[in-house]
């Protein structure tokens, strides 16, 4: 009894409820005609698509900058990389790698300036991050129309100016990670080895980083900035590094997302991309100022599992599409819950 209580305390009610919900969805699935193997495949694929975006939350949370609602900034860097890579006519692995390399300078620049900004507004990071994200997305809406792209694959065909809202990756680097060493069992189960390996690689880098001197210092900054300062650490510098890391992960994350999804979504596409990532890491057990890679993995599986299962199972069961509503309630409810948790008093 005691150990159950301790487990509940450690895992937190929301996580347990969501895990139970997911479990029951899997149990119910066969009885309403939903194939479990197919569902598992979908969950794994979506985990791979979103995992790196969620990983990008970790550095900023760890240094006490809060949840990165400014993730769209990183996504924009990724979009710039992808579109420039296509513009240069790169395809296949070269195209995908090119997109990453081209996105990197943008991500570094955006992250650096965004980090400098957040250092001046300590205490209000999350609100400002949200609106920095929103306004940069809407600014880029104008830029997508104005920037001098020429590739016929990307611009409006009929005399219109600017890029299309969605650009197909067919013929560029569609499923380049998904299809690497893919394991197929039967016609309904597929394991996207390449994408999961890539996630593991990115997670490994993150894990390793937090085992270096700088990574250790960043954790201390988030845990107690005054302690860190007394130990001779430049708190603002650590925060800036964390924001740059988050932004770079956002850029790489969106590229991985797109190669599996099949399209580049421009314009309003990145608007609300931060919320699912934020919700996922919170569901994984992170708080506003503490997160680790386990939180990322558990949270992304649970959250994406729910998103996969609710449309298929509930639609089959009651013939109506609740998925959108469930997504909103689970993700935003989780964020509100996290924001109302009492955390270390801000200094």
């Amino acid at each position, binding site marked *: 009894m005691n150990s159950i209580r301790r487990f509940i305390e450690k895992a937190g009610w929301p996580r347990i409820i969501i895990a139970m919900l997911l479990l029951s969805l899997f149990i119910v699935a066969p009885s309403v005609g939903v194939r479990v193997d197919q569902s598992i495949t979908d969950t794994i694929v979506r985990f791979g698509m979103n995992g790196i975006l969620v990983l990008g939350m970790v550095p900023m949370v760890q240094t006490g900058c809060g949840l990165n609602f400014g993730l769209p900034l990183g996504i924009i860097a990724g979009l710039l990389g992808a579109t420039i890579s296509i513009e240069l006519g790169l395809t296949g692995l070269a195209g995908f790698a090119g997109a990453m390399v081209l996105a990197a300078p943008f991500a570094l620049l955006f992250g650096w300036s965004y980090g400098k900004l957040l250092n001046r507004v300590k205490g209000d990071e999350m609100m400002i991050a949200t609106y920095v994200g929103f306004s940069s997305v809407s600014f880029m809406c104008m830029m997508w129309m104005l920037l001098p792209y020429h590739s016929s694959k990307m611009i409006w065909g009929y005399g219109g100016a600017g890029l299309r809202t969605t650009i197909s990756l067919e013929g560029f680097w569609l499923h380049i990670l998904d299809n690497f060493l893919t394991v197929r069992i039967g016609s309904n189960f597929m394991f996207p080895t390449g994408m999961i390996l890539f996630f593991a690689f990115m997670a490994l880098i993150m894990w390793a980083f937090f*085992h*270096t*001197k*700088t*990574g*250790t*210092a960043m*954790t*201390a900054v988030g*845990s*107690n900035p*005054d*302690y860190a*300062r*007394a*130990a*001779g*650490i*430049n708190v603002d510098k650590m925060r800036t590094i964390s924001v740059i890391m988050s932004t770079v992960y956002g850029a790489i994350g969106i590229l991985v997302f797109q190669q599996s999804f099949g399209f580049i979504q421009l314009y309003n596409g990145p608007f609300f991309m931060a919320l699912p990532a934020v919700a996922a890491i919170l569901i994984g057990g992170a708080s506003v100022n*503490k997160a680790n890679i386990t939180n990322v993995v558990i949270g992304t599986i649970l959250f994406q599992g729910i998103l996969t299962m609710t449309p298929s199972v509930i639609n089959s069961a009651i013939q109506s599409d609740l998925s959108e509503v469930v997504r909103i309630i689970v993700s935003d409810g989780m964020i509100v819950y996290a924001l109302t948790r009492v955390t270390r008093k801000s*200094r």
Partner: protein
Amino acid sequence: MTEQQPLLHMQGITKEYFGNRVLTDVTLDINRGEVLGLVGENGAGKSTLMNILFGMSVIVQTGGYTGSVSIDGKEVNFQNPFDALKAGIGMVHQEFSLIPGFTATENILLNGEILHDNIVTKIFGPRLKTLNLPEMRAIAEKSIELLGVEISPDTLVAEMPVGHKQFTELAREIHRPEMKLLVLDEPTAVLTESEAQVLLTSLRRLAATGIAIIFITHRLQEILDICDRIVILRDGQVVKEVATSDTDIGQVAELMVGRSVSAKSAATEDYNESTETILSVDQLWVDMPGETVRDVSLEVHKGEIFGIGGLAGQGKLGIPNGIMGLYPAGGAVILHGKPTRLNDPAAALAAGMAFVSEDRRGVGLLLEEALDWNIAFTAMQAQNKFLRPLLGGLIQWRDDKAIQNVATEYIKALDIKCTSTDQPAQELSGGNQQKICLAKAFAVQPDVLFVSEPTRGIDVGAKALVLEALRTYNRKNGTTIIMISSELEELRSICDRIAIVDEGRIAGILPPSATAKEFGLLMIGKVKSEANSHE
């Protein structure tokens, strides 16, 4: 004065915090129109006594108190400060409790506004009554006038000089017709000398109207100037109650700090004045809120334990915090003959100094992290210890094994009670947390170690252990230790020399064998003000 019932009578007040007795059988009377001075060192029990009087929740939460409090002969037991306020007892705190964007009038009548009825009130209740500003203004004006100062009731508090804010606070307390007893906690601390004089005059005027005043300050001269009687608290007991006319500043100071010194400092005997200077501080100022250092110069000798004492708020804590770069500072700090960079904690650490902060939970520890991190972190970051270079030094990999080893070593050496090196620091008791802070500083292996309030908030047994650990470390490694403490006895038991800080300056340096009176006079600024008058 005719024999009358005292306005306030506190009888046999005893209070314990977690088995720690802070007040023992305190009895105190005050009559109408009387000004009573309450003096004592930090931790003598003044604030606890006042908390009991005001029914502060901290008292109830820690198990209440024994003894009785009566007002006008009727026993009272206030549940919260508002009860006390209703009974006519008010308090002016050291920190201002004012709304900056409100006028003097609005602040004086805060939550006591004069209200008009209107139609809506009948339905929606009294909170929709409108404010009667003219009448409020008149009351505020009268209250300010009673103090004998000139402040426009329409001035915004944000635009007032500090002195006027203090008077606004005072006016707020006395505007109530039922006000009988006023408690003032260090009201002159933030005032200039002339402002303080005006305040003292105001207080006498108030007393003349029949209001009783309890005046808490460390500035003994002020007490002697305006109080009728003085009550001296020490270690939670009333050591003396005396009419002002029957005493002098020296006696009060001695009573305040004096204690029979039993723990004769062993260090003193082999202390050698002629050893070389390791650290010299010249004209240091530090901008630390509440602990401002104005102009401190001193020299510390190699291998000694140097004590810094003084009353709270005088700046003794600002000295280590400034030298270690935690607060903006200026002046010169010379270690080993080389000047160190101020305002840069990394430079201070690199120069060979370490600091155990008085703010254990705020600055000293990573509460949520494991003990090994807490101990090793500073040494790792400042001196690249416990790191393994990978890829030819490109990556500085954390050596978890080494961290654990050093943590285990110090946990054993300092006898820290914990389950393992992985335990989060917040789960330890105060005394063990303090030892973790010491271990953190020891791990840096400093030449000069600052230890600030090492025994604050820990129990008696742990205190002795912490002091013992410091002394051992000093002997074994020859490390120079500068210890800052509010407890004079503690300093006298371990230090070779003791400097007393008053109003941001060094009032004097004494050997631990100096008398209580000598220390007391330095603390209350008596010596310095005499010196000033000779200038």
